């Protein structure tokens, strides 16, 4: 994995004003993957949007990590279902007219 696309966890903690422990918990929950390179912890930049979602859900809604994990799983399911629904709608057009 290219190091260019990795972001230092400590930087993120300062940026979002959260504890490092949040990242290790997110890692334990399987929400993000923490990579260790030369004794430093990183996450992939693609996971930033997930981290922000988690921070917002914690700050705005007081949801604990178990709840956030459940919400994220359900949102993934909704997204998959929406994709499937779009595909079915497109296929249905084959039989319309």
């Amino acid at each position, binding site marked *: 994995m290219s190091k260019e696309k990795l972001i230092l966890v400590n930087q993120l903690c300062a940026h979002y004003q959260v504890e490092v422990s949040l990242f290790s918990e997110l890692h334990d929950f399987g929400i993000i993957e923490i990579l260790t390179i030369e004794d430093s912890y990183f996450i992939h930049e693609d996971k930033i949007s997930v981290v922000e979602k988690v921070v917002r859900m914690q700050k705005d809604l007081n949801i604990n990590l178990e709840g956030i994990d459940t919400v994220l799983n359900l949102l993934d399911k909704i997204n998959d279902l929406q994709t499937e629904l779009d*595909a079915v*709608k497109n296929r249905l057009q084959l039989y319309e007219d």
Partner: protein
Amino acid sequence: MAFIDYYKILGIEKKSTQEDIKKTYRKLARKYHPDLNPNDKESEKKFKEINEANEVLSNTENRKKYDKYGKDWKHADEFDKAQQQRQQSHGSYQDQSSSNFSESEYSDFFESMFSGGRNRGGNVKFKGQDFNAELQLDLKDVYETHKRTLTINGKNIRLTIPAGVRNGQVIRIKTQGGEGLNGGPKGDLILKFSIANHTKFKRDKDNLYANVDIDLFKAILGGEITINTFKGKVKLIVKPETQSGTKVKLKGKGFPVYKKEGEFGNLYITYNVELPTKLNEKEKELFNELAKLRSK
């Protein structure tokens, strides 16, 4: 600025306690939070409204001012000052509070909530709002990769639309959304494609389907036909004794595969055999003769 009934927005009474407000706000926030309702503009609007109501009503001082001065609550200090001066000079006072609640447009209190200005919770930097847009294209447009300029919130964005995008497909274009909060990065543009099909082809993923009429004689005796495809005209050999409903596959003559240059789906042709109508006497005679021959 029009008056907003914050109590009505939260669905609580004027005498509600701070605990009631907190509880109601949490409940509504969980229901309408944009992270829990992606791509739902109504929820986002509602969330802004309940946030605004909560910001005012959960703060005891602001709530007092709001209860007293209604729509002018932000100018409460100025009113109080003016009142004191008036009392000193005239000894009388007109109550400025208002109870004329009206259904009106959302105020600009949280205008910047999702566009970069407001600071939620200290100096935390947040990514800007993701903009959602729908791009309507014709099926013919997406047969080939092309460039297009979109105007989103008054800003022109030049995009390359890859060949083969599907109806309903959503793509995320990084940093083309709203400004970040407290110096956070810009949001993304989430673009949904709505693809109208005005062609004779039906599309399912990368495959195309079309019905082609052939006359009875070509169906029975076989022959050659020419059909139009997205790639141009294609000659097809019709086998003798082709039945109506027969399907043929034209490999690689379908739709381009998204982001796989040079790869195409297939084109499936279904033959529809057209029976002759308005037969003349001679033709009827010949068909009768044929029928007799077939029945022997």
